[in-house]
Each structure stands twice: as C-alpha cells, then as structure tokens.
C-alpha cells in the first residue's frame, strides 16, 4: 500500500516536469487524428433536444487547419446546405434561397445547424496546442485502464471561448475517451464522449462522438463517422464559393 502510494505520488510530482513535451505531443496527436493533412469523410449527425430529434447526413472535406467544407446530403429538405471555412472566414450556402451568406466571427460560438456543436467546433481556427497550455492532471489507472488526464488552459492572448478543457486519453492506443469543456467561470459546460474505436482510412479513430450539454443532460448530439479518408489530393482552390454552391463534388 505504502509502495503504491509512493509510486502514485512520484508519478504526480515527476509528471509535470518530465511529461510536458509528451503531453503537448499527445494532445496534438489527438487533435489532428481526425483531420490529417487533408481528409474527406461521411458523417451521420443525430441531434436530440427536448423538443425534437433529427438526423442529418453530412459530407466533409478538410485541408490543414485553413480549409473545411461541410455539406448536408440528407434529409432532402436540408440537402445542399453547406458551410465553408476558408482562413478566418465562414460562409454558409442556403439552397432553398440559393444564396451564400458570410457569418461574422461573433457568431462562431453559435450552434451549428441546431446541434450542440458550435460553428467553431466544426471549423477549428487553429491547432489546440497553439491556443492552450497543457498540463497533466492525472496519470494512472481509471477503471483498470491506464490513462492520462490533461488540463488545457487557454494562453493569455488566445481567442478561445472555453475557460478550461479537460481531456482523458488512453495510454495503450492514444485514443481520447472524453473531453470536458468548462466556461470562463470554471463551470462545466459540456462533455464530449468518444467511443467505437475503429480503423477508418487506415487510422484508428473514435468513430462516434457524443456531446452532452451540462445544463440539458437529456439533450445530445451524436456524430458517427461512416467513412473517412486521409491525405487525399485536395488543393485550396477546391474550397471556393463556387464549390460551396455546387451540390456535386
């Protein structure tokens, strides 16, 4: 017992010094895991709220952190609705009125398509390690599984909406299991749970992400990757307003 305690204490004390670099690398790895240098994927997004429940199929393309394009492919009522991120600009295409509108940066924190994700989540501005200082909050076994728990604190000048993020990553395969997002007052705002770890596009990834807002525990958004390809041939010219409007690839 005494030996175990010493071991845990030792790990706690040593970890911040020895693991700083590794912590950054692990968090960065998890951050980039679902993105690659470029990617193309098909997603089913299921949203459950107190008032309605709906499911949408999405097609998504990304290139680095600069470019992303998301298009709704089903249901037919919303099919063709698309969001384009190019640099710091976000554009939406609305097929019903056949118009493209530019979103101001003040709306980045708004819900995307009625889900519990924000515009910011889907088209992340930058890599997590650029905006956050990373520390190891816990290292050891949780329910018999060896994990790290990281605490991400925004850098003083980072333009981020969260006050703190906690993330748990499994040691054996570097898979994230959950992430908790705290607002600026330090209160838990939402929890993302990762599950169904599978090989997609040649990588082991969590195929299902579930977001639960803390103030509405009965609501959730579930994202399920149906297929995913990485490092495909995409150029910045693909992420154009013309492409945003066109229904086809």
């Amino acid at each position, binding site marked *: 017992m005494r030996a175990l305690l010493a071991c845990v204490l030792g790990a706690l004390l040593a970890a911040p010094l020895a693991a700083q670099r590794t912590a950054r690398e692990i968090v960065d790895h998890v951050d980039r895991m679902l993105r690659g240098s470029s990617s193309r994927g098909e997603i089913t997004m299921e*949203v459950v*709220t*107190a*008032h*309605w*429940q*709906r499911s949408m199929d999405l097609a998504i393309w990304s290139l680095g952190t600069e470019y992303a394009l998301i298009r709704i492919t089903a249901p037919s*009522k*919303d099919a063709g*609705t698309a969001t384009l991120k190019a640099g710091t600009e976000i554009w*939406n295409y*609305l097929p*019903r*009125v056949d*118009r*493209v*509108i*530019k*979103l*101001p940066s*003040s*709306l980045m924190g*708004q*819900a995307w*398509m*009625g889900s519990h994700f924000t515009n910011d989540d889907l088209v992340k501005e930058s890599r997590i390690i650029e905006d956050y200082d990373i520390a190891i909050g816990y290292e050891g076994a949780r329910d018999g599984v060896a994990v790290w728990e990281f605490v991400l604190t925004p850098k003083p000048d980072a333009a981020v909406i969260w006050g703190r993020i906690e993330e748990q990553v499994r040691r054996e395969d570097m898979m994230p299991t959950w992430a908790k997002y705290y607002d600026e007052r330090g209160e838990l705002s939402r929890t993302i749970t990762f599950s169904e770890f599978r090989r997609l596009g040649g990588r082991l990834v969590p195929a299902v992400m579930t977001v639960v807002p803390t103030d509405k525990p009965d609501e959730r958004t579930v994202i399920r990757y149906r297929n995913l390809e990485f490092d495909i041939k995409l150029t910045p010219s693909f992420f154009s307003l013309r492409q945003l409007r066109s229904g086809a690839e």
Partner: protein
Amino acid sequence: MPASPWWRIGWRNLGRNSRRTVLTATGLAVGYWSVVVITGMADGLVADMVRTATGILSGQVQAHAPEYLPDRTLYETIGGAEGTDVPALLHAVEAEPGVLGAAPRVYAGGLVSSGATTVGVLLLGVDPAREDSVSRLAAALVEGRLPTPGARELLIGRELARQLDVAPGGELVVVAPAADGSLGNDLFRVSGLYATGIAELDAGTAVGPLAAIQELLALAPGRVHEIAIRIGDPWAAPGMADSLTRRLSAAGAGPIAVRPWTTFRPELVDYANLSSGSMWIVVLIVFAMAVFGVANTLLMTTFERRREFALLLALGATPGGIVRAVLAEAVALGVISILLGVAITVPVLVWWHHDPIDLSRLFGDFTMAGALVRPVLRTDYPLSMCFYAAGALLLTALLAALYPAYRATRVPPADTLAGR
C-alpha cells in the same frame, strides 16, 4: 362652541391689517402653487416617459406562456406546443374595459444577411394591422412602408440597414433555427426602415408579418409568444394585469402569465420613485423658507398687540388662551392661503395639462432610460400632492406661530399697560 372666543379673536386679528394678511397668504399660496405645479410637471414627465418607453414596442401589459420569460425560448408559445385560438384570445383581452389595443407577436433569434454582411438580430413577427393599436413602430417609420400581411417583407431599423447596406426594396436572407430543428431560411424584401432612437431596436431588430415569420420558424399559425396590450393610464397596469389574468383563465385560455410594465420594466418604476422622492425635497425647501416669512409676520402682529394681550392677561385670561388665539390666527391664515393657493393652482394645472409647455425648440428630443422623451412639460394632476402640500402649508403656519404665541404669553401686563 366653547373655544369660539379665541377663534374669533384670531380670525378678526387677520382683518386688522388686511394688506399684510393678503401679502402673507399670497406668499404661502405661491409656495403651494409651486410645489403642486412642479410635482404635476414631474409626474407628467414620468408618465410621459413610461408611456413612451412602453408605447414604442412593449405595450403596458404583456401576456405570455408562464415559462416564456426570462429565457424567451422559441418553444414556449401561449397554450404550449398546440398553440391557442389567437383571435379568440385577442377578443377576450379587448373585452376588458380599459384595454385600448392588443397585438400578437412571435420572437426568435436569427440572422439577416445581405450576402457579404450578416448580423444576428431579434426577429419579431407582428400583425401589422393590429400592431398600430399597441405600439408606435408605424410612427417611427422613416422610409418605405410597413410590411404587407402575409408577405415575406421586413421592416428594419435604419442603423441595421446601414450595417447591411440595404435600402427599401432590397433583398435579405433570413436564417433562424426553427421549432422543428431545421434551419429556417428564406428571402425577405425590405419594405421600410424605422428609427426609434433606441439602439437595440434600430440596430438589432427585424420586424416581419406574423404569418411569414411563423412559417420561417416552423410555428403553426396558432402559436404566438406574446400578446402585447395597450391601456390608457400606465399606472393602472398592475390592476389591469390582475383582472386580465382572471378574465383569461375564466375564458379557458389555459395557463397564461399577464404582467404589467412595472414588472418587465422595473427600471422605469425606480425612476418614477426617485422622481416622486425628490419632490419631497422641493416641498421641504419651499415651506422651510415660508416658515421664517410667516413667523416674522406673526411676530410683528403679536408685538403690535402686546397692550391687548396685557389687558387680556390682566383681566384673567390664561396664557393657554393667548396661545390659542395666536394659533387660531395662524390656522385661519393657513386656510385662507390654501384656498388662495388652490384657486391659482387648479387653472394652471388644467391649462398646462391641455396645452403643455413645449421645450423641444430649445432642447430637441432626447432619450432617457432607453425611452425617447419629447421635452414637453404636460402636467399631470398630482392629487395626493395637493393634499400633502395643503397639510404642509398648515403645518408651516402653525410652526411659524409657535414662537410668536409664546412671546405673547410673556407680555408683563402691568408694565405694558403702564406704557413702560
């Protein structure tokens, strides 16, 4: 009346030097006049501000689903998800005596975009025909026209139009999360622009016909968030809210919360209280000044009559009687002053109520507590202040008489009568 000799002596003494009595009474009457008229003006200004602040959009009374405020969730419509019979509800509201108009509304957060510029706004769906009986949005129209009922048209603030760079006739994309979870989006045409002078309205609100906004939000025609109600006297709003609550629950409208402006605009109540509180300072100053004037007069009259008092004392009058005579004189003076004061106050109140002093040529319009105020000093009838000021005047006269009365009892009879 056993005390009558002292009263009669007091009353007659006023007539001894009628010019001085008239001058003193006039001084007190002018004090009364100024207190009452200033209070009337302040009340008028406050009532005007309340009317303006609540009249521009909110109305003086509002009815919602009980859970609608403070979150203003899209789903909390009157009557729940099934909605309600809106025409019947409006009919029931308008049957209440004192209600001048009622208008249904829906609210939602949304985006309006001209393409390159997108702004987050409050979308407001109104019945254009009914809105005119509740709010002054139509009066704030500066360009174009009101939206046509049922058409996909928007009335937007002039500042919002400047940000979006659109003019009447221009096209806007409107996007809002709808009640069924879909992303409501449609093209609307700008029918007109308004300018209220209130920043949130002019830069952050877009007004469309009820049916078009309901369709955008996937709300059935029976689903509205608010019934806005206009009444004549803003101070009657709390009582009106209570009786409307009773009437609507009796009419079977289901759970409904009716609130007066004093609840949803508490800052206006604070301002009204501050204003009436400060009136008491005016009362204090005016009558404190009067006390010394009246005391001086009474001191002189008692000094002039010291031989009289000496004689009365020598004939066996008690000091209490002397005091009563002087106080009776003061009360009589006070009553005359009140009558004179009322006589000069009432015509001015009536005059300035019906033909208010217009200072807008001097100052222009200005906003106060989020309400556009025209500097027109329409006096209200400050009924309670009329009585309070009369009481204060009487108290002033009595206070002023205390010292002279005391001095009158201290007259040494023998010395005074002997002329020493």
